[in-house]
Structures are given as C-alpha cells and as structure tokens.
C-alpha cells in the first residue's frame, strides 16, 4: 500500500508500458487504417511518457527535449500517413489495411 501511494518513476513506466501495449495490440489487430494510425500515436505517447518520466528522475531536461522531437515526428508521421490513406482511399474506396495488397498479387 505504501508503495502504491508513493508515486515513483516506476509507476510512470508501468503506465507507459501499458499504453505501449495497447498501441501494439491496436496496430496488430485492427483493420481500419485510421485506427491503426491512432494506435501508432498511442505508442509514440507511451514513449514520450517514459522520456519525460526519466527526465524527471534524473533532474535533467534531455528527456523533455527528446519528447518534443518525438511529438514533431508524430506530426510528420500523421500528416504523411493520412495523406497516403487519402490517396489509397481514392483508389480503392476502402480504409481496410489488409486490402492494401497491391504488391501481393
């Protein structure tokens, strides 16, 4: 109980790991590309949470700076991913990821 009430870095890490897992499950099991992309965002956020938690632990700011870079990266990823999605939707009129099989004839 004592350890439950005293929030340490480990708590944040467990939370991050749980989010990461949720993201992984989403990426691996869902068909809808939009939801897959959102799951990727979940994964990136889990990483960010870890970075910031470690930054807090060591009292430095490198983790936070890295979190900002990761957010930048997420923005780029979302933009390109959604662009691809729209191009794909325009051609095949579907948003299901297992129908992206143009290379697998």
């Amino acid at each position: 109980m004592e350890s439950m009430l005293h929030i340490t870095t480990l708590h944040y890490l467990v939370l991050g790991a749980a989010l990461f897992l949720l993201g992984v499950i989403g990426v691996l099991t869902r068909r809808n590309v939009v939801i897959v992309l959102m799951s990727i965002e979940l994964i990136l956020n889990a990483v960010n949470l870890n970075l910031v938690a470690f930054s807090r632990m060591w009292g430095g700011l490198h983790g936070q700076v890295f979190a900002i870079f990761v957010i930048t990266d997420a923005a780029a990823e979302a933009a390109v991913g959604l662009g691809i999605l729209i191009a794909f939707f325009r051609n095949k009129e579907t948003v299901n990821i297992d129908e992206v099989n143009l290379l697998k004839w």
Partner: protein
Amino acid sequence: MAPVATPFFFYLLSGIMLIGGILVITRKNPVHSALALIVTLLAQASIYLMLYAPFVAGVQIILYAGGIMVLFLFVIMLVSIDRSMRERQFNSQWIPGIIAATALGGLFMAVFTKGNDIFPEHALPMVENDNTQQIAMKLYGQYMFAFEIASLLLLVAIIGAVVMAKKRI
C-alpha cells in the same frame, strides 16, 4: 507550484488514459476512437504537468490535441466510414497479434520486476520556474542540429502529404 495530492491525480489520470487507450483500439467508429485518443492525450498532458514538464504539456495540447487530432478527424470525415463500420473490425491475424503483444507485455513485466532497484529512490530536484527557458537553451544550443533536422523532416512531411493527398498537382 508543487503538485498536490500526487497519488490521487496519478491514479485518476492514468485510469483515464488507460480507459481512453482501450476505447481507441476497440471502438467501431473511428470518430469515437479519435475522441477517446484526445481524452488520453489531454490526460497525458496533465501527467506531464505532474512531472514538472509544463512546456511539453503545452506542446502536447497545442500540437497533439489541437493539431494532429484535428487532422485525424478531418480525414475521418473525408473518407466515408459507413462501409468500414459495417465490416469486420479485426483483421485475420488478430490471434498472433494478441500473442505477440502478450509476449511483449511479459517482457515488460520481467524488466520492471527485475530492474526495480536500478531506479533511484527519490527523484532528483528539478527547478520548474524556468523550464521553458532551459528547454529553449537546450534546443537552440546542444540540440541545434537535431532541431534543424526536425524542421527538415517537417518540410519533407508537408510536401509528402500534399503530393499524396492532392488530386491533381
């Protein structure tokens, strides 16, 4: 301002985040998923505040909740979701997927239980007052090169997104 009632807020926010995360990957309707994700992101911004990272929290709200998620909602409204909502939601490899995720979870558990004592007992002290200034110093000093690369990445992403999404160029 020191965080108050840390355990209470931590469990509240992490509960919101986990429920939001579960909703993201289980909802049929992508709009509902996106809204659940927004709730998760906002809760996470609050957790950043608890971790003495106000600037990251602000960036999280502006960029993630205000920017990226609006983009998501936009795209969801552009592509017609009626058809995909009536279809099967999970792909054929969901069993291997779940197994792989469980294995990963087991790995995490193992790491956390084994490596519990490598973390210091108490967090090192950290000044919050000039957090933004310090981050700015880091970004424009030590990480200058990475910062420039990131801006280049964004430029590439903009061009890529436009090329992908535009009907006629």
